[in-house]
């Protein structure tokens, strides 16, 4: 059995070492959160397209029944976490920094917890594509917080074989301990889940990375790997935030640096969270879709701990489990480095929610007023992506977004290391988020403007062509009427007229060449009706 110590580890530049505060929540075993009075299931719970609802208001649901179908490949299904009745399908506050409403299915539990028919998935009997599709329909997404649909990560790049599958048990965010507890208590299921990923990706090695502040989890995982007889390597990595970010962990374990312009399989590596592996195994072994997850509840509470929580549990009911202290001012979703304040506690726990922290001003003192940047360079040293945050800050603040892009603001993972070390206490992450969302909006705008311009050119070309063709028809008709009463001379004149019209049309066509191969089709469509009442087919695209 290869031990973690034998493996050569790499370092990523930057990173910080905040107090971990993990002990508070990792002392008690994972509890089972009680059934809430109401479950709210946003249909958009993964990266990619929003799931389309497939139930109706008033319908009775069984536990594990699908309520939203994946829409396309980069999308994932959503399921009923318990049996009960659909009481509404409407916009509800989201578990998002904005708190903006999002289409959700509201379920009133009947308390019976009647399961739908569950059947284990025989992976060996199915083709890889069928397994991927099944995972998509089971709603399995990355539970590290990014909620990228897992099935979409289970295809190797065409050009490169996968060398390493990295199982991410680093859990670098302070306060958080859900992955820690999961590995301690359910190590074998996590390892079996990893074996599903291995079977689909066929890597040379499977590396399980765990930070050295979780020795118990590492021991449990080693035992599980040994017990199951897999050749996975459990690698203990130094505790350093953000080792748990996929790219940083890949760097530490394999030495590979994945730029934002490439996907990790192209470099022969893919990374999954331990929670994802666990839920994938639950689905394959028991036929249970993703309807619950382990959520850490910690911070300014009487009893911190981890709870196996149904997706859709409203935050207000969930946080009550920890009995928040009276001076709690706000609740954060995610860790203290990358998390955000939950604007509305009626929003539900979602698949992306790994941790809820009760925050008070004694736990997280409000920052002093922002001072000017003194270019000390501490942020650049702390940045794990080796960016120059102080320069990005300058350009973001001045809204010189093209300059920020030039300085690779797209590479920023918003890990917060820069703001953590900043002596001027500048909310750098906030500036970068602002700049990035503006840049994103502008890119979208530009794409739309380009598409619009193309449409306008198409329309112009079509109009001119129609005009030319009309002129042609009129000319032909005129010749016909004159030709009926005339002899050979009239015939010649007719021919000349037609030729002239054809020539005119040709010239016009050349002056405005169609920009899009679809244009001829749309012209045909328009031709069939005398009036251009029916628009070209691409209007409905």
């Amino acid at each position, binding site marked *: 059995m290869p031990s973690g110590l034998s493996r050569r580890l790499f370092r990523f530049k930057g990173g910080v070492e905040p107090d971990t505060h993990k002990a508070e929540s990792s002392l008690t075993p994972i509890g089972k959160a009680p059934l809430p009075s109401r479950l709210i299931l946003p249909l958009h719970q993964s990266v990619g397209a929003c799931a389309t609802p497939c139930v109706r208001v008033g319908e009775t649901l069984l536990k594990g029944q699908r309520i939203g179908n994946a829409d396309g490949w980069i999308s994932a299904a959503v399921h009923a976490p318990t049996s009960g009745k659909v009481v509404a399908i409407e916009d509800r506050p989201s578990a*998002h920094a904005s708190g903006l409403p999002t289409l959700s299915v509201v379920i009133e539990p009947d308390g019976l917890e009647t399961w739908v028919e569950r059947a284990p998935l025989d992976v060996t009997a199915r083709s890889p594509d069928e397994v991927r599709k099944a995972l998509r329909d089971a709603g399995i997404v990355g539970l590290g917080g990014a909620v990228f649909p897992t099935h979409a990560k289970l295809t190797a790049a065409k050009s490169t074989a996968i060398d390493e599958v990295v199982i991410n048990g680093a859990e670098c965010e302070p306060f958080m301990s859900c992955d820690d507890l999961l590995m301690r208590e359910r190590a074998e299921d996590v390892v079996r889940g990893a074996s599903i990923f291995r079977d689909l990706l066929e890597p040379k090695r499977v590396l399980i990375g765990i930070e050295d502040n979780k020795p118990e989890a590492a021991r449990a995982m080693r035992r599980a790997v040994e017990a199951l007889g897999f050749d996975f390597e459990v690698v203990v990595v130094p505790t350093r935030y953000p080792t748990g970010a996929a790219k940083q962990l890949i760097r530490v374990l394999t030495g590979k640096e994945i730029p934002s312009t490439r996907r990790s399989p192209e470099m022969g590596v893919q990374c999954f969270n331990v929670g994802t592996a666990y839920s994938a195994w639950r689905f394959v072994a028991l036929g249970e879709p993703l309807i619950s997850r382990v959520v850490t509840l910690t911070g300014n509470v009487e009893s911190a701990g981890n709870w196996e929580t149904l997706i859709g549990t409203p935050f207000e009911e969930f946080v009550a489990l920890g009995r928040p202290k009276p001076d709690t001012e706000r609740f954060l979703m995610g860790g203290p480095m990358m998390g955000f304040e939950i604007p509305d506690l009626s929003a539900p726990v979602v698949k992306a929610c790994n941790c809820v922290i009760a925050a008070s001003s004694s736990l997280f003192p409000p920052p002093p007023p922002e001072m000017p940047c003194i270019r000390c360079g501490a942020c650049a040293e702390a940045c794990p992506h080796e960016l120059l945050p102080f320069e990005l800050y300058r350009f973001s603040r001045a809204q010189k977004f093209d300059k920020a892009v030039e300085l690779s603001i797209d590479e920023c993972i918003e890990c917060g290391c820069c703001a953590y070390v900043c002596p001027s206490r500048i909310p750098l992450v906030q*500036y970068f988020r602002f700049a990035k969302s503006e840049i994103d909006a502008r890119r979208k705008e530009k794409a739309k403007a380009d*598409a619009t311009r193309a449409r*306008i050119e*198409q329309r112009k070309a079509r109009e001119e062509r129609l005009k030319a063709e009309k002129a042609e028809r009129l000319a032909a008709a005129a010749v016909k009427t004159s030709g009926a009463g005339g002899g050979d001379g009239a015939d010649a004149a007719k021919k000349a007229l037609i030729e002239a019209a054809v020539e005119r049309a040709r010239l016009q066509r050349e002056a405005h060449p169609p920009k899009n191969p679809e244009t001829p089709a749309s012209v045909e469509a328009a031709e069939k009706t005398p009036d251009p009442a029916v628009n070209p087919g691409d209007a409905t695209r």
Partner: protein
Amino acid sequence: MENTDNVFIAVAVMTLGAAFLGAALGWASERFRVEGNPIIDQIERALPQTQCGQCGYPGCRGYAEAIADGAPINLCPPGGEAGARKLADLLGREIPTTGVAEKPPQFAVIDENRCIGCTLCIQACPVDAIVGAAKQLHTVVGSICTGCALCTAPCPVECIGMKTIPETLDNWKWKSPVFQIRRVA
């Protein structure tokens, strides 16, 4: 005598220097000459392509040509402040002090109860964003609509209204901390 020599040498050096630099400039202007007038294309690309004509010129292309001829750069409401700044950067001009006409992004909505299916709006739409047929209900494809409002005037039953695009999770943006600080202060 020595003095006049010095003066002579100085004048000669300066003259030669000027001649050399002049020649270099002349050569560079030939060598790196930019063909055509791509500035109009660049301006057009900086415009939002709503083709709404609110600037008073025929479409975005028309406005781009007008700007190249010296028209003010603050006449485009869909582009707003940001668009004017883009033009100002591109052209090295100042944004006129009269401010920029601004309008939140909108899209057209057809009232389905009133539409008579006359196809007039379909003909007016410069981007083919309205679908429908004669005597059939028309509808606007929201994702294509540029919010130019050119379809509202031709409608004989005034069933087309303009709506502001609502803020959703997809288009929500983080705000700049600069403004937060100002608000608190």
